[in-house]
């Protein structure tokens, strides 16, 4: 039996009286590209904050490659690469300087860091821009830097919280293709949170999160079958409304 890359079970969270996550359970296997689809406020960012230990976890369990995040937080964090919803690069530093900083946070030596940075900037097509200040880069290119950065310490699980917000179509497609390729070729597990339904296409597994609960979990084709909808968008709307009406 293989160990899931990322597994949550009965995960719940509340801010004061307001419940933002309720009994969320799912597991992602190595090499799997999974889309976590939900409207704004569905609880996606809260789930990411719990998984990255920015919030303390109360109800339920989070496991990363079989390790409980409460007990072995640092080991779990080491296996994770994270792309946050909000931009987190230093705008006045160059692409390389930002990446070196990240490597230092993971304890990589200068030489290891230089080798990995050289390889990663090529993969995201930024070798020409590596000495430019991030401020000079477009939104799409900045995102590429953040994905390159998240991979520098060779994580086995990639968490991306709305990585394509505010990007044009070609930038979005580049990022999607890049991450899906990493899953396919390197066995990376990725959880890609988004509110954009079209990012869930092409046979990816989709987990629909709505008002803090998992409403559906399966391949796009499966969701269409279950809801008898003609498009993923219609399926999503059905799933989201069904319970609201019930």
């Amino acid at each position, binding site marked *: 039996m293989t160990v899931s890359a990322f597994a949550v079970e009965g995960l719940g969270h509340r801010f004061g009286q307001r419940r933002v996550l309720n009994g969320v359970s799912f597991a992602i296997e190595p090499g799997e590209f999974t889309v976590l689809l939900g409207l704004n406020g569905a609880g996606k960012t809260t789930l990411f904050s719990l998984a990255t230990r*920015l*919030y303390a976890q109360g109800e339920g369990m989070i496991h990363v490659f079989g390790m409980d995040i409460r007990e072995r937080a*640092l080991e779990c964090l080491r296996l994770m690469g994270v792309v946050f919803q909000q931009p*987190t690069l230093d705008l006045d530093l160059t692409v390389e300087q930002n990446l070196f900083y*990240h*490597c*230092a946070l993971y*304890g*990589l030596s200068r030489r290891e860091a230089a080798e990995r940075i050289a390889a990663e900037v090529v993969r995201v097509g930024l070798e020409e821009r590596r000495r430019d200040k991030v401020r000079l880069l477009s939104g799409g290119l900045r995102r590429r830097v953040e994905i390159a950065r998240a991979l520098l310490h060779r994580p086995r699980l990639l968490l991306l919280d709305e990585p394509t917000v505010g990007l044009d179509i070609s930038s979005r497609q580049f990022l999607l293709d890049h991450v899906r390729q990493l899953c396919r070729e390197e066995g990376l597990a990725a959880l890609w949170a988004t509110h954009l339904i079209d990012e869930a296409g092409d046979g990816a597994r989709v987990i629909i999160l709505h008002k803090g609960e998992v409403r559906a979990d399966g391949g796009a084709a499966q969701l269409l079958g279950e809801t008898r909808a003609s498009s993923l968008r219609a399926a999503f709307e059905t799933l989201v409304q069904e319970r609201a009406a019930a």
Partner: protein
Amino acid sequence: MRPIHYLRCLIGVSIREWLRFLNQRGRFFSALVRPLVWLAIFATGFQFVLGVSIIPPYDTYIPYSIYIAPGLIAMILMFNGMLSSLSMVYDREMGSMRVLMVSPLPRWFLLTAKLFAGVIVSVLQAYAFLAIALIWEIEPPWYGYIAVLPALILAGLMLGALGLLLSSAIRQLENFASVMNFVIFPMFFASSALYPLWHVKEASLWLYRICQVNPFTHAVELIRFALYGQLEPVSAAVLVASTIVFLALAVYGYDPAKGLMARRAAE
């Protein structure tokens, strides 16, 4: 993670702080101009208002500008400590803090590394100020420049730790104005930075007591004595103790289980 990883992290965090500082020339400039304005204008204006008698560590009558120099150095350390810590709050809503917090090293270490990195920048600014202050004939003995280094580091750590603590408690940029009003100004004025404490005691006993327990007073005094190659042990002890307390509270504040981050998100 082995010790070498911790060291690499510390170096990386320091380099980043340094690069950021180099990129913000305005920050360097204003950090230097602020105390120089005090020295050039305030100290000149008050030259004859405040009678300064012979008090240790000085062995003769001194002009007022010499008296306030250590206070102005501590002011540099305070502004830097507050700015480098609070920058985490207003730097894109904790964005860079998140990056730091998901690194696989213990949080107390990450926060301490951040603190040390800020202090390196502060100390260099303090020396830059001392160099320019030569124009106003503020010339401590040569060994004072060496002896003051540990005092600058300790005072910088205390003020940086206080900044970290505030950053864990404060939510937004606009609150920096409150920090100015409720932390920086009271700490600066209710201290021995601008006037000797015996002066304060003559005017008001309760203010004197406040000045005595203000850790900023001890930062100023440690620097003042160190500039003349002397150690002020009480001040050193107070600074060590307050650094530990502030840092411990800041680590608590950034602990997701107990601290303020979760509560902040809840609001």
